[in-house]
């Protein structure tokens, strides 16, 4: 978000190699053929895609690539935590669907966030929607409008999820701003 106006620096070879590797691993898993003919086809098509769109994947290219791996590790840890939250919340909505109708009290709540970049907001909005009981209905700047189905779901919105997302990216934001200055 913060460097929307400035032109991003061009993709480095390391990024291109990483994108190519990612594409090629996906190709081999999806194709399942390991003979030279199919692998050559894979190399050609992955190379073409890399040339065309290697600079789409990374927004802040000054972040060292090793740091990206640490971020990816934290992101995966977060996803496992999120999965557990999804399980708990799904159980909650199951009880709600079977229980008495009086307990369903729909409401729109407002939630301010301190997260800055688009990807962080996307992750937060998606996480809120994934945990049953709450759906992000509108995002206006840094205000989220969330439809919650009952009080318990609305109370669960505060704090923890946002703090964890900020933890995944926080140091990255610092290092990317210092890299640009």
């Amino acid at each position, binding site marked *: 978000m913060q460097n929307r106006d400035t032109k991003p620096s061009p993709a480095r070879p390391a990024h291109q190699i990483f994108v190519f590797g990612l594409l090629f691993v996906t190709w081999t*898993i*999806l194709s*399942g053929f390991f003979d030279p003919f199919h692998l050559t086809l894979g190399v050609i098509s992955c190379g073409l895609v890399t040339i065309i769109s290697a600079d789409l994947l990374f927004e802040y290219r000054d972040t060292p690539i090793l740091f990206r791996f640490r971020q990816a590790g934290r992101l995966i840890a977060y996803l496992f935590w999120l*999965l557990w939250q*999804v*399980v708990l919340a*799904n159980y909650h*909505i*199951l009880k*709600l*669907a*079977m229980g008495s*109708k009086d307990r*369903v*009290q*729909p*409401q*729109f*709540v*407002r939630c301010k966030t301190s997260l800055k970049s688009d990807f962080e907001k996307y992750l937060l*909005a*998606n996480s809120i*929607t*994934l945990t*049953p*009981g709450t*759906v*992000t*209905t*509108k995002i*206006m700047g840094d*205000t989220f*409008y969330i*439809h919650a*189905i*009952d009080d318990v779901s609305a109370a669960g919105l505060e704090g923890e999820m946002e703090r964890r997302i900020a933890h995944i990216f926080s140091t990255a934001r610092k290092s990317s701003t210092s890299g640009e200055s």
Partner: protein
Amino acid sequence: MIITIISAILILLGVVFFFGAALGIVRFPDFYSRTHAAGKGDTLSSFLVILGFAVYQLKDFHSFSHDWPILLVILKLLAVSLFIFMTSPVSTHALMDAGWEDKVKPEIGEGKPNHLNDDSEKF
């Protein structure tokens, strides 16, 4: 045998959550609450069902050198559930937002806030 039982349990659990989602669609009061049930009762349940399929694939897994294609099948199955986890919330959000833009009236619980309505003049 154990693998078959584990996968059956996982698939059955998924079906139970699917049932909860279907029940929610019928019983919840308005469009927005129903979208809750429809849009994401299926995230966990489809994940459980797909996990059940993946575990069932392990049944024929005896030696790595001969049976490695099964691992590819499992990876593909897990990729399917990953894509569901990425796209399902987005489509739910799009549906909700479209409903609000179309002025579908929400049913708000008694004494509960409707901040979206309060702030809608500011947009």
